[in-house]
Each structure stands twice: as structure tokens, then as C-alpha cells.
């Protein structure tokens, strides 16, 4: 394992054309990631998913991306041919997309899809492939995995779809996992089990993790470091343990808007979007 950082990102920009000219939705993002866990939180539309996609060079046209530096394990991702980039995706860098069912192939069974993800990475006998797929579905807490392997994506529930996507992205044992709202459809107990599984891979296999989520408690618990994004920029960067002492008014506003188990407020506080400068 090299000592150089897993991922280095400097001045990442993503823009889209609009009637008023090109508008940047990611405005100069920089960070360095080791074999550790980075959380990205922030308002809807703040550029979290676009940041994840840009690392994999998956920003769709007419969107454009650009960075002063984008290096993964010493490889300059900006200069990589599309073919080599494709080899990297799914094998060494995986992304769990925010729209799991949309990302699954609708005409292939769940079992076939996960098996395919595994085979692109490893040569295994047919029987071993089946066993690994089954084992992976169990690991993400799918009940009755044999039945589920034979189902098509439209036949699984929202939370099952998310876990299937996670299984598919973890099975090739990537070096870097980008997880975009991976557990938003899961209740807390299943969520914890799935995130513990991801955590295990970070600890034991040295995987790097970028966890994108709007759940502040979740990132505080499962990450080492946190970036808070707003309107394409990082407005706060802190150790996960410090999130609850965050000082930026935007971060404070987010924390106040979380409903509580013993809720008594008639109305939840919302962000006054004019309260902070710069946007």
C-alpha cells in the first residue's frame, strides 16, 4: 500500500450551459483523501452528486468538468483514455448512484447482474460465482437471497434496490467507494448493518470512502472528516466528531431542521437562504 493519498482533487469545477451562459454547479472543490472516510453533506442541489460523478468522469453532456488536479493512486484521471477510465470504474473505483433502480439493468435478473460485476474483476468457476453472489446478498441483509437473485429490478422494493446496488459495487472490492445517499431508503437498524459492512472494508482492506448523504447524524457517525457543501462550494470542513459544534450558520441551520424522536415543535425551522453571504 503506497503512502501517497488515494485521491487528490484540486479546484474541481462542473458547469452547465443555461440561457444566461455557463453556470457552475461545483465551484472549485479541493480535498485529499487517504484510506479513510470522507462525508459530504449539504443542501439539495448543492453539487454533491456532481462531485461524485466528476471523479469518475461521468458528468453527462452538455455538462463540462475541469480540475487543476485529479489524481487517483498516482494516476492522473484527467489524462486517462476513455478506455482505461472504463477499466478503472467498477473495478478500482465504484460509485453507488443515488438512483439505484435507474442504474440497474431492467432486463437482467439481480443475480445475473451481480455475477457480471464480479466476473469483470475476477475469474471464477460458475459455482463459486453463485456462492459469492449469495454471500454478498446476505451480507447486505437481504432476506431470502435465493428468491431475490431470480427477480428483476422492478420486482424489488426501494430498500432492497439500494442494498442490491451496494452489493454490486462492493463485490469487486474497490479501492475507492463513492456512495451517493446509499441508505436513504433503509430504516436505521438495516442502515447500520450495511454501513458497518462498508466500514469493515475501510478498516480491513484499506478502502477509501466518500459518503454523500443529507443525514448529518449518519455522516458524523460513519466518517472521519466532513465537508459541508452549499451552492457548489465547501462552506465548512471539520472532523466528524466536531460536526455538532459547527459554526457556519448554514450548518447550524441544517442541524436545527432535523426532526426529533420526541418532537413537540409545531413547525420545523427552515433555512433563511439570505442569511449568509457569498451566494
Amino acid at each position, binding site marked *: 500500500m503506497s503512502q501517497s493519498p488515494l485521491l487528490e482533487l484540486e479546484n474541481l469545477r462542473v458547469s452547465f450551459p443555461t440561457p444566461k451562459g455557463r453556470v457552475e454547479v461545483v465551484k472549485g472543490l479541493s480535498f485529499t483523501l487517504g484510506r479513510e472516510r470522507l462525508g459530504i453533506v449539504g443542501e*439539495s442541489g448543492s453539487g454533491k452528486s456532481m462531485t461524485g460523478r466528476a471523479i469518475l468522469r461521468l458528468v453527462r453532456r452538455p455538462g463540462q468538468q475541469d480540475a487543476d488536479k485529479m489524481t487517483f493512486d498516482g494516476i492522473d484521471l484527467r489524462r486517462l483514455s476513455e478506455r482505461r477510465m472504463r477499466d478503472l470504474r467498477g473495478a478500482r473505483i465504484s460509485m453507488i448512484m443515488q438512483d439505484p433502480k435507474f442504474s440497474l439493468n431492467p432486463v437482467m435478473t439481480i443475480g445475473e447482474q451481480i455475477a457480471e460485476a464480479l466476473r469483470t474483476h475476477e475469474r471464477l468457476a460458475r459455482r463459486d460465482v453463485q456462492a459469492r453472489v449469495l454471500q454478498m446478498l446476505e451480507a447486505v441483509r437481504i432476506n431470502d437471497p435465493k428468491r431475490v437473485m431470480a427477480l428483476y429490478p422492478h420486482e424489488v422494493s426501494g430498500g432492497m434496490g439500494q442494498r442490491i446496488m451496494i452489493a454490486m459495487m462492493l463485490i469487486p472490492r474497490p479501492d475507492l467507494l463513492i456512495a451517493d445517499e446509499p441508505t436513504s431508503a433503509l430504516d436505521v437498524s438495516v442502515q447500520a448493518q450495511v454501513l458497518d459492512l462498508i466500514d469493515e472494508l475501510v478498516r480491513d482492506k484499506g478502502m477509501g470512502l466518500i459518503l454523500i448523504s443529507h443525514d448529518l447524524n449518519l455522516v458524523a457517525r460513519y466518517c472521519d472528516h466532513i465537508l459541508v457543501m452549499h451552492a457548489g462550494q465547501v462552506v465548512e470542513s471539520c472532523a466528524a466528531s466536531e460536526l455538532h459544534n459547527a459554526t457556519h450558520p448554514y450548518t447550524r441551520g441544517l442541524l436545527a431542521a432535523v426532526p426529533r424522536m420526541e418532537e413537540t415543535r409545531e413547525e420545523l425551522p427552515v433555512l433563511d437562504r439570505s442569511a449568509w453571504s457569498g451566494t
Partner: protein
Amino acid sequence: MTAISLKNLDISYGPTKVVEAASFDVAEGESFALVGESGSGKSTILKAIAGLAPDWTGEITVLGQPRGHSVDHGFASRCQMVFQDPYGSLHPRKSVDRVLSEPLKIHGISNRDARVEDMLAAVGLDRRFRFRYPHQLSGGQRQRVAIARALMLEPKVMLLDEPTSALDVSVQAEILNLLKKLRREQGLTYLMVTHNLPVVSFMCDRMAVMHKGRIVEIAPASALHDGRFQDPYTQSLYAASGGNPDRKD
């Protein structure tokens, strides 16, 4: 009057029965939550009520009228559903403007322009989103369009499947406040699926808890304050969600 009444509802997909003997009543103006294990049949129940899961037996009554086994178009103006998956539920080639004005057109409602603008504002979307297509929106922006579409026809009953789980907490707060206000002002009834117990605590009066295709408990939302749940599955869900099971005071 009861807004939604389910009696002994069994729902199957082909040979597999996924919901068994579900029964509950939701009063008019009530906000009722359906929580429970992933894959336990929550979305399936909403789909059956909306006429999208045709293979069921038992009784479903909405606003006093028994439901048939298929989609009924007059039904749409009284009862609307927001789907769990905002990606699949928006037509990829329809702009936000078209998605929102079409139901008005079909039902012969005028003043469409102003209504669309007002609704976008109500769900916290800037007017620059009005002529965009789904692929030009973030996850949370799409979900807000889906909620806006359901509200366009001013239905009496809303079936909400994880309406805010794709949203960040600040937008979630805006949407939940909006739903609460509409309920207060227009007496809407909500049947809402969510895995988030604090959201239930904020939004709902009662909750049904599902586990492996069955309703294992129906409890008042106040149980989230004092932990008074009967069923072991509910108790574990509550404890895992950060509820304090020893608070029975």
C-alpha cells in the same frame, strides 16, 4: 367519515403473497404512518389502494367508495400518490412545466400558469427550474416536482411513499411544514410510508408497523415519546432509531 379503510387485505405478485391480512382505518383529516422493515410490503399497500397492484383480496374503501382492481381516473382528483422512486416516476421527456400543468388540463382547470408558479414556490423550487427536464435536476429537486404534481389537483387523500427520504433536512423541513399546513387548512388525509420515526413524530397521529408482510402493531405517535410499544419488532426498531426504551413514565 373514514378516508381509507382496509379490511383483511392480502396482496400477491404472481404466486408470492407479500401482504397478509392487513386491516386499518384512517379517519378523514388524519395523518397515518406506515413504518417497518424494508421489503415488508409498505409500498405494495399504497399501490393496491392506488389501483397499481391488482392482485388482491379483501376490502379497500376510499372516502366511502369501494375500490376496484384497476386505475380509476375519476379517483385521481380525490386521491394522489407520491412514489418512492422519483427517478422512475417522472417522464424523462416531459418538462417540469408540462408535468405540472397536464393534470390541470385533463381536468379542465383554468388559470394553469399561475397555479404552476405558485406550486413551484410552495415546494421551494426557483422558477428557473420550470422548463427543465428531469435529467437536469438533482435527486431532491425531482422529488419536489413529484410532490408538486400530486398536489396540483388538490386531492383529499394523499398516499405518500417516503416523500422526503431523498431530501436534505432543510428541504425536508420545508416539505413537511407545507404538508402539515395543507392538512390544517384543507383537511387533507395522509397515509405516509417512512422509515424515519422522528418524521412520524412530527407529522403523524398514529402509525402501523409492518414486519414480514403483516401489520404487527398500530400505535399512537405519542408512543414515540414514551416508548410504549407492544411488539418486539417495534421495540427493536424504536431502540435502533435512538428511542429510549426505558422511558415508560
